[in-house]
């Protein structure tokens, strides 16, 4: 990874992005806004499970409002991340914090896919608000997972040498 990062940092693409510091800051700002949309969507879905908000709607309706933000947010995150990684390959690709973040994102994606499938199979089972103990535990876990991903994202800048 170290050798690959070295090579990548000397490509034309990387040098181009390295020179556009203002553009990288702009991409990071968009990256943060996508994190915001994902975080708020996770929050609204979880608040319904926890019986705090959205109780006047079915879970299917809440999911219909917010799940699209999860996926489009993820797409924006990926699109903005690619130039950021190309510009500073070592910062990410030789950094254990980055890989920890990727692993947690994979877990988040898996949970989201599972949630969608479960909802399609039996939407009514999710309507109970607050939900059962396991479901509420899942809601808390997904919130903590989002926080952990965001924190690890910020820490990438501090743990690379």
């Amino acid at each position, binding site marked *: 990874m170290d050798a690959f990062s070295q090579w990548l940092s000397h490509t034309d693409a990387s040098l181009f992005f390295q020179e556009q510091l203002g553009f990288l*800051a702009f991409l*990071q700002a968009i990256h*943060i806004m996508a994190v*915001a*949309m994902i*975080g*708020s969507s996770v929050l609204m879905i979880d608040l319904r499970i926890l019986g705090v*908000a959205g109780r006047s709607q079915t879970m299917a309706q809440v999911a219909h409002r917010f799940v699209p933000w999860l996926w489009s947010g993820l797409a924006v995150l990926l699109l903005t991340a690619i130039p950021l990684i190309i510009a500073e390959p070592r910062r990410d690709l030789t950094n254990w914090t980055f890989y920890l973040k990727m692993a947690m994102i994979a877990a988040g994606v898996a949970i989201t896919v599972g949630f969608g499938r479960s909802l399609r199979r039996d939407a009514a089972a999710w309507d109970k608000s607050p939900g059962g103990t396991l479901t509420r535990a899942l809601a808390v876990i997904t919130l903590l997972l989002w926080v952990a991903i965001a924190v690890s994202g*910020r820490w990438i800048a*501090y743990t690379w040498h």
Partner: protein
Amino acid sequence: MDFAITFLESLQETPFAQYIRESEWAFPTIESLHVIALTIVFGTIVVVDLRLCGLASTNRRFSEIADELLPWTWGAFGFAVIFGSLLFISHAVIYFNNTAFRLKFIFMLFAAVNMLIFELVTRRTVAQWDLGDKVPWAARLAGALSLVFWTASVYLGRQTGWTMDVF
């Protein structure tokens, strides 16, 4: 201005501020929490503003969406202020002199004024437009301006980090 700089200097030399500045973990951790808080502020505001612009969930009452989300906006904002203040004191003079940082506060002030005008004036007629997408232009404008001001604030916040010249 001299008094301000002197005050800020003494603020950042307090043991507490020094600790945040010099500890390996304190600043990054507080910064992460600041980002978490502000993303909740921004995300919830986007949902409310999109409804206000008549662009999303127009089958739900604006009041219902606002009542559901704005407490979280305010709560998260409170935390963002607390964590932001802790970050600020660690490099008070640098932040105070940073252009992006100053602009961020100007835009947040614009957002506050926009919100006040909306809440005190425009929202009075909400019963007439609460449901559906026939939102009056003043409310749509409030929503659109809010999105612009908060997007600018997020961007300027990121720019502050880049232009701080600390590292």
